[in-house]
């Protein structure tokens, strides 16, 4: 466990008390804290990824390629072109995800940030679901299927039923979340009843859900009357998430729901008795069983909650983002991104929240990188992947920048973080 790198506090043995002669100075300690802290590592990780990304962008830029043909006669051109392409791409990334300086006023300049939050919304919800699974020792790769079922059922309520405003929205939301929970619950039930490994069943159920929803869109109850496109009708206005900041922005109620979901997940995992049992099962199922906790029941409950949270992501898409009808691609790969979001957030609710916003920024910024600078979408994805990889690898970043490792010969290190069951263990168990 990488966490074991974190030093435990003095428990027994000879404590390194403050009266020890080799106690380093306070200033030095602060320096240590900062250089080994997570914040600086993350910043450096992003810098590193941007650097590698810059190389990629420059290499793949057409102008740079053209200029490099005559590199030896006029090397300056290549450098200028490279600089232009990289700075253009990154400023587009920033202006597309945080603040657009080209807009005249703050109200329109800040729109990219709201876009970031909008894109982060389903990522956080699904990330919470996946993270919850991880905490119980379950690797839920079934986000796609759970989102699709949630979107299909909730979407159906949203376009097919006529209910009063407010109630309609709540019913659609509940049905959608229940749909995701159902699809996840199948996995939990299969695991509890037959021991079927959740990695297999979630992968398979993704496909089943995809084809099921495809069929329903083409010829079932999700079909748009009078149209032959495999696309659902638009959600009724009574079932659409209201905009939070007015019609000029896309940010909608879903974001608030996701904040609530984050708080709920936090409460569930760290304050509720069910969460206590979840964590016990995730960390040591044997001891949990001996302590009277029904491990199988926890698997079912956990998959219900996990699927429900992922379902929230799915319903968010049909009630918030793609309200004018959806097709079988409505999950948009969020179920897979959620795995990374969950792990980047170390499977902690607020960590997931932060990681979701980071990913949301990538998504929002990706558009303008592509549109403004013509950076191919594949390169945008590569740069994003690199950022994730570097953020997930503090030891690498430390090694590159020759920063000290925390815990090693560092008296008075920070309190240890608790270990989380990593999905990889779940896969192997």
């Amino acid at each position, binding site marked *: 466990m990488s966490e074991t790198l974190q030093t435990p506090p003095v428990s027994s043995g000879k404590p390194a008390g403050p009266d020890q002669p080799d106690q380093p100075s306070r200033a030095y300690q602060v320096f240590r804290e900062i250089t080994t802290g997570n914040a600086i590592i993350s910043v450096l990780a992003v810098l590193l990824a941007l650097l590698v990304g810059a190389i990629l962008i420059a290499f793949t830029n057409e102008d740079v390629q053209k200029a490099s043909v005559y590199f030896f006669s006029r090397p300056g051109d290549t450098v200028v072109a490279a600089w232009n392409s990289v700075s253009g791409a990154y400023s587009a990334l920033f202006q597309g995800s945080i603040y657009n300086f080209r807009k005249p006023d703050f109200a329109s300049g800040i729109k990219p940030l709201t876009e970031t939050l909008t894109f982060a919304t389903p990522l956080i919800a699904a990330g919470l679901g996946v993270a919850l699974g991880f905490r119980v020792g379950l690797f839920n790769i079934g986000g796609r299927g759970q989102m699709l079922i949630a979107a299909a059922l909730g979407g159906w309520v949203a376009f097919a039923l006529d209910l009063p405003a407010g109630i309609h929205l709540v019913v659609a939301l509940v049905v959608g979340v229940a749909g995701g929970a159902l699809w996840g619950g199948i996995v939990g039930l299969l695991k509890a009843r037959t021991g079927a490994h959740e990695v297999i069943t979630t992968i398979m159920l993704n496909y089943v859900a995809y084809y099921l929803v495809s069929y329903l869109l083409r010829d079932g109850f999700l079909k748009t009357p009078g149209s032959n496109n495999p696309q659902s009708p638009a959600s009724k206005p009574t079932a659409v998430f209201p905009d939070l900041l007015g019609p000029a922005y896309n940010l909608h109620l879903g974001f608030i729901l996701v904040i609530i979901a984050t708080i709920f997940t936090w409460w569930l995992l760290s304050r509720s008795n069910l969460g206590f049992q979840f964590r016990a099962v995730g960390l040591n199922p044997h001891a949990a069983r001996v302590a009277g906790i029904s491990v199988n029941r926890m698997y079912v409950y956990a998959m219900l909650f996990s699927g429900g949270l992922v379902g929230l992501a799915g319903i968010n898409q049909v009630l918030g983002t793609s309200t004018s009808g959806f097709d079988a691609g409505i999950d948009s790969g969020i179920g897979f991104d959620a795995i990374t979001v969950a792990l980047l957030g170390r499977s902690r609710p607020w960590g997931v929240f932060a990681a979701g916003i980071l990913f949301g920024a990538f998504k929002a910024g990706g558009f303008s990188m592509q549109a403004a600078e013509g950076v191919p979408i*594949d390169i945008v994805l590569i740069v994003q992947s690199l950022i994730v990889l570097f953020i997930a690898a503090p030891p690498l970043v430390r090694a590159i920048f020759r920063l000290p490792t925390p815990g090693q010969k560092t008296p008075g290190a920070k309190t240890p973080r608790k270990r989380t069951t990593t999905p990889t263990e779940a896969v192997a168990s």
Partner: protein
Amino acid sequence: MRLSTTTDLIQLPDVVLPTRPTGIAVVALLLLITAASGWLVRSKAKVPIWLVTVFAVFLLVGFLAWASADHTIPVPGLLFGSLSLAVPLIFGALGGVISERVGVVNVAIEGQLLAGAFTSAMVASITQQPLLGLVAAMLAGVLVSFVLAAFAIKYFVDQVIVGVVLNVLVSGVTGFLFSQLLAPNAGTLNSPPRFENINIPLLSEIPIIGPVFFRQTLIVYIMYVAVACVYFGLFHTKWGLRLRAVGEHPQAADTVGINVARTRFWNVSLAGAIAGLGGAYFTLGSVGAFGKEMTAGAGFIALAAVIFGRWDPIRATLAALLFGFASNLQNVLSIIGSPVPSEFMLMLPYLVTIFAVAGLVGQSRGPAASGKPYIKS
């Protein structure tokens, strides 16, 4: 059902299974077996695996007889296609088995397959040497593995994160290079020579089995050898003993002088090489050109096969074959005209897998230390 291909030396007569009598006979047998298993379960004994297998075979024959009512099912073709669909899954699963057995969860099989497919197509096109393409595919797989290994083993990054990210990364890189290089220059960069089918003398004339298994390309023969080697190697050699030790209990392996990090690193690389071969099958063995995302999720199915096969190369191979069979059965049935909507037919292989896992396999336990970085104090 047609049992022979037109080129067989030994022509078998077509077997005609009348729908109704076959149906009745099969149902009766199935009921019998169910009753027997029920009795066994009641008496708290385990249902033997052969009984389950017999049940499955009867179920299948009955289903085929029903579904193909007044149509001919060319059995060799059905099986040949199943094998073709299974080959990349088997390579991927072998890579998965090796890397998980040594303690590194390999979610990046998809990426390794895709990288292998891409490089083999390009290198074989440039050199016009499919063998070089094959080597290039292995190198590409190894390269992906290097990243996985470096991040997971040296820098303790969560193995699943690296795997998931690598898949995106490889998809991005191959997609980009495909658009920029391969697509515009398809003639020179994306027209690899394919391996020819090689008929193995005698073996290829065995009825049914011959045409399916012994009229294949070099890659498929390599696959047979690979499955056998990995199985033998894992369970009967020093290499396998050490590899499994590292995946089960790295510290114990360390205490007997095995270098855990090195063992992991090179075996993960080996796994990449094997998965890379699976990628080459797409381009050099099967379709003769690279296409964006052409692996279409095969890596994830392979991952499922690894677990389905309980981390055992032979069982994983069988799992992949089952999947390939279900996929191709679906193909054949939909072609001869099935009343079931296409989407439900397409679900078949996935549902079969779920039922098989839930019904036959049950609890499976992986290598104990898989996914856990080994950090020395």
